[in-house]
């Protein structure tokens, strides 16, 4: 039988194991995953966007997705989805304030923004995926989805800070929809359809390292000066002359949750465009550090199991001992 002394010893051992595990966790935080060297991404410059929505249409045809019906107060649309969904991977939204007459102005102005996968350096969806359905390509860094591996838990939907992975809730065999940077078109020498079709180069495809240089170049320009803007993909032959705009002092995606492979430039503050303010540390690195610390060498589970065993042991009684001699007789002879 368990003595008081033994029970206390057991409890102390379990507590020690848990304490050791939790002390170890800050020291072993894994940090943000770095961006792959040859990462591919997009640069979305809201000041160049004219809101033609050709990217929405091109995205749908490149990914074989149907048009979505939207009933708005001013009429019915088949080409104006309100947000990304199971059938829409990319949407252009517009911020508007006051009389909305001036482009890229916070007061009495309007501005466009793009909603699509940011292809994080350290993606939460990949971290949250219990199987290998969400993967980040080690070379291109494209975050892809494998429907055959997916178990339908939708942890990725809950994990993403940008609210990107969408489930096809209306389907009995739901799957996840998200932008995969047209990875299926890359082998044929093509690239992201949204960038390919963009008439102003507002959405630009290319290696992230070159896109970052382009961001630095644009932000260094004096507003109003004439400059050449690349169109389609960076480093190509298609360029056009345009006028440099005024940018807010922030490149969205440069540092957010450890950096993303999709970068955004804008003429109005990003909080007006519905972009969440996020810390530099990736949620995946925090949760994985905690989780990995707890489960390291199975110390915490073993400690917890030990504690449970002690409690169970403490409550054990010899089998012969009657439960309650004064209680009601056991119910018997009762057949349904």
């Amino acid at each position: 039988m368990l003595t008081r002394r033994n029970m206390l010893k057991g409890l102390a051992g379990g507590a020690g194991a848990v304490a050791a595990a939790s002390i170890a966790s800050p020291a072993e935080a894994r940090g943000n995953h770095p961006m792959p060297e040859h990462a591919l991404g997009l640069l979305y410059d809201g000041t160049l966007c004219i809101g033609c929505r050709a990217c929405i249409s091109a995205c749908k045809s490149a990914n074989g997705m149907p048009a979505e019906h939207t009933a708005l107060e001013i009429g019915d649309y088949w080409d104006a989805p309100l947000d990304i969904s199971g059938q829409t991977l990319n949407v252009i939204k517009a911020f508007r304030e006051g009389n909305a007459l001036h482009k890229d102005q916070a007061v009495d102005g309007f501005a466009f923004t793009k909603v699509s996968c940011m292809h994080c350096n350290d993606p939460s969806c990949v971290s949250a995926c219990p199987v290998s359905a969400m993967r980040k390509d080690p070379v291109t860094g494209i975050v892809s989805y494998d429907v055959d591996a997916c178990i339908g838990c939708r942890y990725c939907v809950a994990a993403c800070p940008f609210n990107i992975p969408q489930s096809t809730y209306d389907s009995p065999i739901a799957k996840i929809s998200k932008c995969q940077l047209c990875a299926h078109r890359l082998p044929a020498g093509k690239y992201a359809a949204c960038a390919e079709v963009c008439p102003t180069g507002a959405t630009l495809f290319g290696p992230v390292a070159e896109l970052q240089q382009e961001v630095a170049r644009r932000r260094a320009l004096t507003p109003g000066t004439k400059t050449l803007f690349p169109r389609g993909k960076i480093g190509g032959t298609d360029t056009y002359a345009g006028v440099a705009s005024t940018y807010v002092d922030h490149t969205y995606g440069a540092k957010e949750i450890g950096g993303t492979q999709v970068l955004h430039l804008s003429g109005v503050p990003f909080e007006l465009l519905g972009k969440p303010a996020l810390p530099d540390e990736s949620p995946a690195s925090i949760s994985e550090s905690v989780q990995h610390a707890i489960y390291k060498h199975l110390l915490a589970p073993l400690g917890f199991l030990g504690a449970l065993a002690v409690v169970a042991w403490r409550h054990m009684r010899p089998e012969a001992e009657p439960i309650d001699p004064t209680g009601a007789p056991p119910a018997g002879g009762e057949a349904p």
Partner: protein
Amino acid sequence: MGSLPLATPDEDLVTERRFGMKRRSFIQLCAGLAATLGFANNAVGAIFNALVDAKRPSVIWLHFQECTGCSESLLRAEHPTLEKLILDIISLDYHETLMAAAGHQAEAARLAAMAANKGKYILVVEGAIPTGANGNYCKIGGKTAIELVKECAADAAAVIAIGSCASWGGMPSTSPNPTGASPVAEILGRPVLTIPGCPPNPYNFLTTVVHYLVLGKLPELDAKGRPMFAYGRLIHENCERRAHFDAGRFATQFGDEGHRQGWCLYKLGCKGPETYGNCPSIGFGDAGTASWPVGCGHPCIGCIEQGVGFTKPIHELAKLLTVTPPTQFARPDEQQGQGSTLATVGTVAVVGGLAIGAGARLAKNLGTTADKPSTTSKPER
């Protein structure tokens, strides 16, 4: 056709003699004018009567810094009756290109017409007015363009600036503008009716004149003095290639696959998205569909619009004005769905209440059955 007069052999003769066309063709022309104005079907009769009965208004047409393209397009339009209208419906008392008179005779005709129709004649100005060097860049009959336009406008019933040059300066006013080319409104110091374009569509001018004849007033104008019936919408809005724009099908070079397929010319610098005009709706020269620049495969150069035509490079990307303000775009925080309705809340409350009640009842009954003899069990002997 409303109050269209019945045809008599005499009236057939009237239209034939006066307009050089059969009555039937003349009614067709009136119907065309009514359609351009957006008038109802029964307006055809009113237009017919106005054109047949009204005293031909005197028109004085001045030419300054221009190429006479506006007059040419008016005369050379394929419609068989346009020159007849210009010469017969209105009384064109002074037009340097068309009048037979020359020299002092021409000037005398102008002064005579102005005196005879004081306060009733229509002044049409074609071409910009040079203000540089005290206006000495353009002199007619010893008078500068500035003096002429002020003199003629003083007693005019209406002043119409035809073409981009007269409307806002046009091509002559392009930087560095050594002659100081200026629009009519600037010289007169008051707004005038403008029919911009290089050249403008002749029907926009003609319809404005007919509007004046039929209703006795000028049509509704926008802030730049342009008739709303013709310049009320962006070219982009009615463009026959608009569907290609929306679907992202752009021609990227002249003669490429997209260009041969008739795709959108935005990437080639089409200024349709920032130019107001009815070019895609009515075309040019009555030569059928696609008889306008974009229809023929060349991007719109925005010849109508100040600050676009002759100012922006032809292949520079246009500003898109249709999306201002962008009503059909989702906001960043667009709300979807419509919250819970009373019926939903009620249903959920009823179902939830039933579930809780049933659970409570079940829990109350648990363990109590053991005490009672079951009704189904066999009684003990």
